[in-house]
């Protein structure tokens, strides 16, 4: 049996064949930027293991509040407890329990009022969760008894929580953490989760999904936890035993999904990891994660970050173009949305230009500003689209070209206006067609009050609110 754990370090993953498939796993955790700033230890703990014919990935996220001052240890002990309980569970009941089962997902079981409503599988899962909670409690109790308060804790933890720790026989709160686990054998797979973070599976159709139901109690910085009064009722889970397996499953702590805002952006990031696995292999991928996750924490959530993954490398390679195609399609959808928004904004500007009331003037200015941002967004999306197209075999998908703009912002005819120059830089990177039609003067900046007909700028009239320089990319001047 080989078990790899990762706490602020990379695992050395093993590989294993389950059936015809080569299954591999890795995990990595890094300390969050906000923790570094106050010299606080990271509270995430992740693990990936291949144990005989069993692959397991686990991510635990220790709570960050003062009361949970040993949650970094709590998350590590939760991983230990889970590995022990899962190994036993699989050995004793796994094959017979899941045989032939279709994909099934179960939300928090607190909604199940009557024990008679529980299926045999549900009851088995409750026993598993009960075992994990029991083992975790035993481990944190032993740790609390054997490890007296440290100097750092005495200095940094509020006295009320130290007193609570010293005068209690119950230590769940001090070690509180979330738990997310994915397990795969040759015949079935299952996953379970208490708390926040995200589990995403990748397959052919749909490309990605969240196999474990979400719990609405997990919202913003509020989460369910192993340290809650009745954690067994807060686990949610899923399983399948009909021979269908995900191609890859990614577990990520909330530090990751908080960085992306929406889940499809997180899935997009995971596809980047899958591409790296397919093209550069596991070691290079782990090296990139080690380099990039701290950077992501810095520009994203600033929280600890963990990712653990179980994957079928052959199927990842086989389907990687499908995943790139998904990234392109998603980008196309965003491009369509932004094109629609640009049209709306043009219509809005046109409709507002003839009104002279104060509100219309303000709305006009907003629309002009929003149009500028929409052009910028379109440029970024087009660049992303074209970057992704280059990752596919030549000719599979055509690059995205931004059409030349023939729209000229109409000039409002009001008395109380001041003039500003609108600068319209067009560079070769932005649009080759624009450059070819517009010539060398495209990058020329025009000073305020310069003749309006100079190329690359447009004089429009604005109202007396601000004097920003508007940059209207990819606009072609209309001859007057």
């Amino acid at each position, binding site marked *: 049996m080989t078990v790899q754990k990762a706490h602020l370090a990379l695992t050395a993953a093993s590989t294993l064949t389950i059936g015809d498939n080569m299954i591999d796993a890795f995990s990595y955790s890094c300390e969050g930027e*906000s923790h570094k700033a106050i010299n606080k230890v990271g509270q995430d703990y992740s693990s990936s293991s291949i144990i005989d014919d069993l692959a397991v990935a686990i991510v635990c996220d220790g*709570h*960050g*509040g*003062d*009361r*949970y001052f040993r949650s970094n240890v709590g998350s590590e002990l939760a991983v230990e407890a889970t590995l022990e309980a899962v190994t036993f569970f699989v050995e004793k009941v796994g094959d017979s329990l899941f045989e032939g089962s279709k994909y099934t997902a179960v939300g928090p079981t607190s909604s199940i009022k009557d024990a008679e409503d529980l299926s045999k599988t549900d009851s088995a899962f409750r026993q598993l969760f009960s075992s994990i909670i029991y083992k975790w409690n035993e481990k944190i109790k032993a740790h609390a008894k054997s490890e007296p308060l440290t100097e750092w804790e005495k200095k940094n933890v509020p006295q009320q929580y130290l007193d609570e720790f010293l005068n209690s026989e119950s230590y769940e709160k001090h070690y*509180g953490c979330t738990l997310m686990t994915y397990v795969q054998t040759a015949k079935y797979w299952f996953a379970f989760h208490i708390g*926040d973070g995200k589990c995403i599976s990748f397959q052919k159709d749909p490309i990605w999904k969240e196999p474990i139901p*979400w719990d*609405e109690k*997990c*919202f*913003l*910085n*509020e989460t369910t*936890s192993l340290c809650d009064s009745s954690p067994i009722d807060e686990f949610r889970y899923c399983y399948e035993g009909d021979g269908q397996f995900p191609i890859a499953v990614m577990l990520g702590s*909330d530090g990751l*999904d*908080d*960085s*992306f*805002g*929406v*889940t499809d*952006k997180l899935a*997009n*990031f995971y596809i*980047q*990891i899958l*591409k*790296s696995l397919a*093209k*550069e292999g596991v070691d*290079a991928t782990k090296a*990139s*994660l080690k*380099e*990039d996750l701290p*950077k*992501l924490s810095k*520009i*994203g*959530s*600033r*929280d600890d970050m963990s990712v653990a993954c179980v994957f079928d490398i052959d199927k990842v390679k086989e389907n990687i173009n499908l995943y790139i195609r998904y*990234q392109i399609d998603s980008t196309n959808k965003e491009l369509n949305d932004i094109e629609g928004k640009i049209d709306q904004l043009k219509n809005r500007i046109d409709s507002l230009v003839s009104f002279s009331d*104060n*509100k219309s003037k*303000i*709305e006009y*200015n*907003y629309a002009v*500003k929003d149009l500028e941002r929409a052009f910028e967004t379109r440029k*970024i999306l087009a*660049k*992303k689209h074209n*970057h*992704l197209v280059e990752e596919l075999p030549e000719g599979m998908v055509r690059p995205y070209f931004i059409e030349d703009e023939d729209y000229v912002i109409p000039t409002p005819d009001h008395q109380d206006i001041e003039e500003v120059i609108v600068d319209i830089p067009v560079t070769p990177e932005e649009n080759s067609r624009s450059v070819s039609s517009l010539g060398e003067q495209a990058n020329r900046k025009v000073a305020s009050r310069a003749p309006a007909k100079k190329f690359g700028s447009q004089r429009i009239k604005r109202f007396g*609110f601000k004097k920003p320089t508007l940059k209207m990319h990819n606009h072609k001047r209309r001859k007057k």
Partner: protein
Amino acid sequence: MSFIDETVSVPRRTMNLFFLIDTSGSMEGNKIGAVNDAIPNVLPLLKDIQETNPDAEIKVAALEFSSGVNWLYDEPKLAEDFIWQDVAAGGLTSLGQACKELESKLSMSHGYMTKSETGSGYYAPAIILLSDGGPTDDFQAGLKELKENNWFKKAIKIAIAIGDDADKDVLKDFTGSPEAVITVHNIEALKMIIRIVSVTSSQVGSKSSSAGDTSKQEQVIKDVQQAASQVDGAESASGVDSSKYIDDWG
């Protein structure tokens, strides 16, 4: 290969600051004038907070309520872009309707903040309610609906009671805490408290917090009360029964 390139976008989190402004007839004159003076002066400060915080962008939305309700703009605007439009007083006090309208914009399915079921991408909003009277519609029905909303539950909620005639019980009910209601008794205090509450809510609201930390609401209340104690003509609602101030609205 790098995972952070042009194919991966990491957006800044957004904190929305909502002003709910009573524009009923009793606000006419210096009270509404003070509101129209104070909020535009706060906006540059919010822009400064945003610029010094690379993690968050602050957006502003304003809802006026009198006989009906009206958003100043269709959607929240970046603090740096927000242009205040003077509001005028007149009519009744439809606070219940304002609650329902706010609830619709905080809806997880069709409101302003719908990116993710987890709330990712946003900080909890800050909501500042200003009123000088009592609701003239079914406030409780509107508030009941609003209190079910996850964003409202997590929001920083502060109320400014403008003068002794403001219904403090209603404002306490809205904010969920008597300490979150600040009463002002004159024009200068009103302007100053609008500034203090807006800036404090934005500073606290646009920063990350951990599970189990003091709530942002508690932190804002503490900071606002401390600052308000230095303002002549302002006091927390808990001290209203023995107010040392007499209303003076010029």
